[in-house]
């Protein structure tokens, strides 16, 4: 009879691996790929990434994938094919509903006819290739001349919103509207009770400095950190401080391969293991991370800057128009800080005038106004 103990039987060890959602942000910046064309042309890279996507889909039955292109003039979904309500109507997209199971029905050519290919793989590949071709056709020279960088911030937020939607749809509570509402109201609580979908973001980046998108990218990083979504970075070319910080803050993998030709092996070994497998593997990380921030006024990476005391915006110079913070509009006199470098306050008069200590602090010893020089 002692064998019957209510506590013993009910906690079943759940050995099943949660399905994982991989959102790939592919930097398709034509300028950067043109630089890489001698070692790793975009076509080869895309083919390798497709094999990697197949490997990811094969690693778990319910695994799903989303691919987002971060182009020079826009960011858009390559897979799943976006709804036809997008600016350019697509005759191929069927019902426009985003299908989470990776079985978006593409009625385009040759998907059904290849007996050498697993159907789900063929579906994803065709969709990605079609959308990619469409993206390239839509790229005009004027777009390229406008900017040499890529819109990684927009792509990241697309990825995050897709993941958030997929997580909500996936969690068992969706049938019940109350709990769905609860999930929206308090995402953390839901997250701890059902760890149902393990999501991660992989950024394949080729572009250089992204300081002009410091604010949107940083916001995305914090959102990912809060949602516990690791951001993996594969840096094929260029160097940015921001993406290093992204992988470091979210616990993702950062890799900057010396030989981009071996892209597939890097992907397979370092980026394929999902969060479950990563618990038992040693993953490469960024090592020394540059934590410097970019200023809000000129998008320059700064060592020492000025911080608005109200909204924590960072500025590189004290020349603010009308002494107003650019972000929140509150009064901010930085010139005072410039003329009065922070100094250690001598703490002689400790016991003397206790009552009036606050008001009587001399303006010279504390940086006047509402700013503090920041050392990052």
């Amino acid at each position: 009879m002692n064998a019957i103990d209510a506590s013993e039987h009910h906690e079943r060890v759940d050995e099943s691996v949660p399905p994982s959602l991989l959102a790939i942000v592919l930097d398709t910046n034509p300028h950067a790929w043109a630089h890489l064309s001698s070692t790793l042309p975009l076509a080869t890279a895309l083919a390798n990434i497709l094999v990697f996507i197949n490997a990811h889909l094969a690693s778990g039955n319910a695994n799903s994938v989303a691919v987002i292109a971060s182009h020079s003039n826009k960011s858009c979904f390559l897979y799943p094919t976006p709804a036809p309500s997008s600016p350019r109507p697509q005759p191929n997209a069927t019902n426009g509903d985003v299908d989470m199971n990776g079985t978006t029905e593409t009625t385009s050519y040759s998907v059904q006819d290849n007996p050498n290919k697993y159907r789900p793989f063929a579906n994803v590949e065709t969709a990605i290739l079609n959308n990619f071709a469409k993206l390239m056709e839509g790229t005009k020279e004027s777009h390229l001349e406008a900017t040499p960088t890529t819109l990684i911030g927009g792509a990241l937020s697309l990825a995050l919103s897709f993941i958030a939607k997929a997580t909500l749809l996936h969690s068992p509570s969706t049938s019940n509207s109350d709990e769905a509402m609860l999930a929206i109201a308090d995402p953390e609580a839901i997250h701890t009770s059902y760890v149902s979908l393990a999501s991660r973001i992989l950024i394949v980046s080729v572009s250089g400095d992204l300081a002009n998108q410091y604010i949107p990218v940083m916001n995305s990083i914090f959102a990912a950190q809060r949602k516990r979504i690791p951001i993996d970075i594969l840096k094929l070319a260029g160097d940015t401080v921001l993406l290093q910080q992204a992988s470091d803050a979210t616990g993702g993998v950062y890799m900057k391969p010396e030989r981009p030709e071996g892209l597939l092996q890097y992907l397979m070994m370092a980026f394929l293991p999902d969060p479950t497998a990563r618990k038992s593997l040693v993953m490469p990380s960024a090592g020394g991370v540059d934590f410097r921030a970019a200023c809000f006024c000129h998008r320059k990476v700064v060592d020492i800057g000025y911080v608005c005391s109200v909204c924590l915006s960072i500025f590189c110079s004290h020349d603010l128009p009308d002494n107003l913070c650019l972000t929140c509009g509150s009064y901010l006199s930085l010139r005072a800080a410039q003329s009065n470098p922070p100094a250690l306050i001598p703490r002689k008069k400790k016991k003397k005038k206790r009552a009036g200590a606050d008001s009587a602090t001399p303006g010279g010893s504390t940086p006047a106004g509402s700013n503090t020089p920041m050392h990052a």
Partner: protein
Amino acid sequence: MSASSFQALDYLEQLPVQTHRKLYEQPSTVLAIFRCMLPHLAKSIVMALLYMPSSFPAADLDAWFRAESSQTKRNALSILEKLHIIVSKQDDERKPHYELYMSFASSLRQALEGSGSHRSFGVPSHKSEERRVSVEFLDKYSQRQWENILFYLVGGTVGFRNPGGQDIGQGTKNLLHLAGFYNHSRITQDGFTFVLRDTNAQVWSLLVAYLRNAPQQRMSETDILNFLFMLGSLELGQDYSTATLSATQLQMLEDLAEFGIIYRPHKSASTFYPTRLAVTLTSDAGAFSQATTTASSLGGGATSKGFIIVETNYRIYAYTNSLLQIAILSLFTHMRTRFPNLVSGKITRKSIGKAISYGITSAQVIEYLETHAHPQMQKKKPFLPPTVMDQIRLWEYERERMETSQGFLMKGFGKVEDYKEYVQYAKDTGVLVWQNDKLRMFFIDSIEQVGAKIKRDMQRAAARA
């Protein structure tokens, strides 16, 4: 991995190397084995090795894994070695290296890249649209065929007659007999295990029985496995040509059609349709659970996600009108009322006792109730009320009041001290089963050590005298 893939994995592991080699020539088979048979970490290892230009030194592999997960690593490696997927080699400096088997690696690459000309993912047939059968029809068909098999097993015991009228074929009957599910026109304990599982696990256990039976039918196991794994990668609602199939596979078509795993318009048709049972063979999703919407609209509540509500007062409400499910439920429930879409009953001591006398265990009953628990029940963890679960177990233990163990009764000790010494010795060596101090008797299940001690003591006593 679900229970169903474990069965198939067990079967695969005991196959000889030659069969594995032959199996790995088919990319669809390799992909299916990779997708559903391998433990999670093993997949990571295989993928890391797949495109590696040279072999992988074992030392590097150890470095790749965290120290605390060496147990899971060893487990993954041992499965990979048992399936002959990786091979450990020694290089010139006698250091161990890991490599993937050539054929496995090239087939997996072909599967991922979609290259080659193996045509192993099924050749779709091109037919005009209007002659195609619909997905609903396939669902209905496979459900009917599969429920016929289950009903054949259960119906006789409960005393129901199949209203569908259709009996299953002689071949299927023989197979159920060979698998040990049905014997002397009665369902066996294994049969109950089979019936109470979820559909995907049922399909696999029947197919494993089919595979074991293959050599007698002079069918090639490799061909069967290849075909099954190919079925798992097909598209529902698409018809496929039989032109590329081998003789064994053509023979299989008939059997599988009878199980409801595939559908053929007529016996000599040149095409076949995989049903939902087939396309979910290599995925963990319960075969019919994805068909929820169609199934419920058909009224076949049996196949919807979950339909049983168990209350803490032992009452059971099952939203179903499937005779099969009612028959299964009535194996261990005292049925009271039946409505168009609902049956209700109560779990009683008597009904559980009856089930146990058939050979059903309490664990099976609980598992069945858990797998088919209504979504409302699935919100809580555990799904079933703990009191009910415990009571079902208690009712089972009730029938097992007597426990027998073979051994030796020691009695006739002259002095209390002697008795106590020997009891203590038996207790220490862990052989004591029962003792009675009043009668100076005890019972042990192994005599060797206690006997040796008695002999030693007697010799010592004799020497002293």
